[in-house]
């Protein structure tokens, strides 16, 4: 197939965990390329290696063997400092349990990565954050602390935080696992919408209903890719599909 250059590429990646003296192979011989604009789900049963794969791509863990490149950088060759910078500039994280900073309100949580970037002025930050909050539909909760928000609202804040730096790729590990199915669907709706606007999404899930809505499904089993199905082209209109 004719692809634009992949934003994430895994080549012959193995990941072993050490449990005492026992080697637990979590990923084996993974070859995977993600193109910009994809809306990819990593599916598979519990323990199949979904989280492990996302961690490698998210630059928070390193492969035992093989090469992981993110935005053209071999993550094994980057320093801790540069990896952190890569995460800040290129990646957005959405966590299963939201992981918001409890002492900051919704606005401040979303603003946080911008402050770390030190690129925008206060006014610019404000505009960017408020726009995003509006987009994810919780702008009226900007002054609320996480413990004053529902699960769905929290996940929206988390999504806004992941997007605020306009990353090339957003990683989400089971973003709907802690939400009821209705809220879960709403969150996936939101992610699809944002994907339509150009953000690359890569997330793991158990949920078959979520899997059904993905553009591409990479199925893992015991650390190996057992299926890789692309259902629609990058950027293809889902509106047409659902109609």
């Amino acid at each position, binding site marked *: 197939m004719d692809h634009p250059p992949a934003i994430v590429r895994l080549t012959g990646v193995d990941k072993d965990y050490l449990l005492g003296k026992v080697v637990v192979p979590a990923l084996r011989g993974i070859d995977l390329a993600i193109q910009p604009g994809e809306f990819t789900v990593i599916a598979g049963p519990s323990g199949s290696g979904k*989280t492990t794969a996302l*961690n490698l791509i*998210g630059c*928070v*863990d390193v492969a035992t063997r093989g090469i992981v490149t993110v935005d053209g950088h071999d993550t094994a060759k980057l320093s*801790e*400092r540069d990896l*952190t*910078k890569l*995460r*800040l*500039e290129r*990646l957005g*994280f959405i*966590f*299963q*349990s939201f*992981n*918001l*900073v*409890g*002492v*900051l309100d919704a606005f*401040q949580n979303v*603003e*946080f*990565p911008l*402050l*770390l*970037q030190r690129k925008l002025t206060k006014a610019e930050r404000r505009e960017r954050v408020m726009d995003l909050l509006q987009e994810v539909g919780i702008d009226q909760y900007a002054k609320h602390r996480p413990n004053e928000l529902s699960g769905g609202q929290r996940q929206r804040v988390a999504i806004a*935080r992941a997007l605020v*730096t306009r990353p090339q790729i957003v990683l989400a*590990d089971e973003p709907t696992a*802690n939400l009821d199915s209705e809220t879960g669907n709403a969150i996936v709706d939101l992610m699809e919408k944002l994907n339509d606007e150009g953000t690359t999404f890569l997330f793991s899930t158990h949920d078959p209903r979520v899997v059904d809505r993905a553009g591409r499904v990479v199925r893992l089993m015991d650390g190996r890719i057992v299926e890789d199905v692309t259902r629609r082209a990058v950027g293809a209109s889902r509106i047409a599909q659902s109609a």
Partner: protein
Amino acid sequence: MVLFRIALRNLWSHKTKTLIVGGLLVFGTLLVVLGQSLLTTLDQSMARSIVNSVAGHLQVYAADAKDNLALFGSFEGTEIGQIKDFPRVRKVLEGLPEVQAVIPMGIDSAVVFGGNVLDVKLEQLRAAEKQGDHARSHALRNHVRRIVVMLHQELKNLNGLVDKAKLTEETRQGLVDVERAAAKEFWDSYETDVLGHLEFLENKIAPMALGEDMIFLRYIGTDTNRYAKAFDLFEMVDGQPIPAGKRGFLFNKLTYEEQVKHKTARRLDRMRDRLAGGFQLATDDELKNWRKLNKDQHKEITYQLDDDSAAAVRKALQAELKSSETDLVKLIVAFMDMNDQNFARRYKLFYETVVPHLNLYSVKIGDTLTLRGLTASGYPTSVPVTLYGTFRFRSLDKSAVSGAANLTDLNTFRDLYGFMSADRKKELEALEAKSGVRAISRDEAEAALFGGEGEEVAPEAVAVTPTAVEAALDPTEGFDEFAGVDMATGAKTHGASLADLTYTQAQTDGGVVRNAAIMLKPGVAVADGLRAVTLAVEREKLGLKVVDWRKASGLIGDFVWVIYVILFTAIFVIFIVALVIINNSMVMATMERVREIGTMRAIGAQRTEILKMFAAEAVVLGTVFGAVGVGLGAAIVGTLGYVGIPAYVDQMVFLFAGPRLHLLLSPTHLLFAWAIVYVVAALSTIYPAYLATRITPLQAMQDAE
């Protein structure tokens, strides 16, 4: 900055913990502020006390001194040698622009009167006789004999003061007994009836010595008039200054009251002061003890009463007690059994009706007192000297430290100290060779030589009785206590003429001086003065050691440092505790925040940013609680500075340079305290901050909920 906000929010959301930590920090800061202020103020007030009463800003003494100068006593000896050529020292040092005055000194101690030891010595003598220890018996016998002779002497003095006809029968008989015990025949026959003699001494003589305490005096031999001018705390109380060029003695008012005043009267004074301080006879043990002593020591009064005065006192006490009792002792005991209700009245009555019949001060202004001491070479000397008056150091009236300093003239000091310089020793040797005498009692020789300064004195001083020389030379006698006795009589005889002598300033300056106080001009810092004087001493090769008042004062000068060490140990411990607690609570908080910190790291926060967040917390802690602590400390110091800390104990008066210590507030102390809090907060944050930077973003991914 958001990190600051997170820090603040974190502190806010753990209120109890923050308050405990903050409380510790506030307490620590408070202690630092208070402690520093207290110590600085104390140091200043103590400096004022020491500098302006005895030490001056600097002290100089012989460079070849064996011991260090310690004006207020030390554990070391006091062999501080003598200053060579004091007139030159004065000329050079007073020529310096920094120096106001140079005051010569000779500090030593002396004893006035003998007494009370008699009981102890007799007991020891009896024991020695029992054991057949001849050598010991011999030594003790001599000692006892000396005491008896002294007692005899004193009683003869007393005789002169009180009309013989008025003495009670008992007193008169006592005098006869003492006369007998002091006689040569009594001691010649001692061996023939040891027990009989002992019994006589114990029963008849020892009671006579009752109430006759030895008065140990510390004195400063100095140019008293220059002294009075240079030390601005000096102030005459009674009497007059020693006339220029005259020999004389000035009692420190406190010593005079404590040591010379009639014991019963003194105890009543102390009771009055203590009652005024809010204590009660009904409850206070100290007061009860004094009352008991007053009842027990009735002899202190009866001993001094003759028949007529006894009758007068009897009548007054009968009236007060509404009693028909005739036994004076019983009356006194009943009278002294005072309570809170009748104390004031009886105190007044005592002074109005009893005191006029007593010798209220055993030495009165205008009297001659005989100072006895040991010379530098260990021989007993005695010098009669006129008591001109009493003085005090202003605002230090009650301080025993400065109160222990009495003053006498330099020439009297020199006679007591009996120092012999090298060239005079040569002179003496020449004298010996000429006269063909193998050796002369050094004392006698010294006395002769010193007297030689003023020519008139020489013949009298040489006229020391031959027995003294014999006694001093007799190897079996050792250096003998008899010498002291005979010296005393010898001194007495030339005493009258000594008092009449007038010395020129040159004579006064020219003799032995052991050390000298240097007063700096107003505004000259002690350190600068020290440097200037040290340089001058080196340049002119004066052969002197120069020390500041702190070093010169010996143990007391170190006092502030001792408190300093204690206080800062306490503060150190508190801060260590604070450090451990803050550290622990922060480590725990860090553990609770693993997810949060991991998330920040995953989102893209560098380690340094996590570090900054912790630093922000430390800064907030330090700023807020440091400010509270400093503010509170300043408020307390300010209040105490205004009200003053009262000196609860008399000794504190000296340290406080007055009855109250007014704390000083200094911005440096506040800043210093604040800085310490910052350091503690920072130190206690280091470890948890380090832990936090080790948290990986992976830890945020792992499901914790």
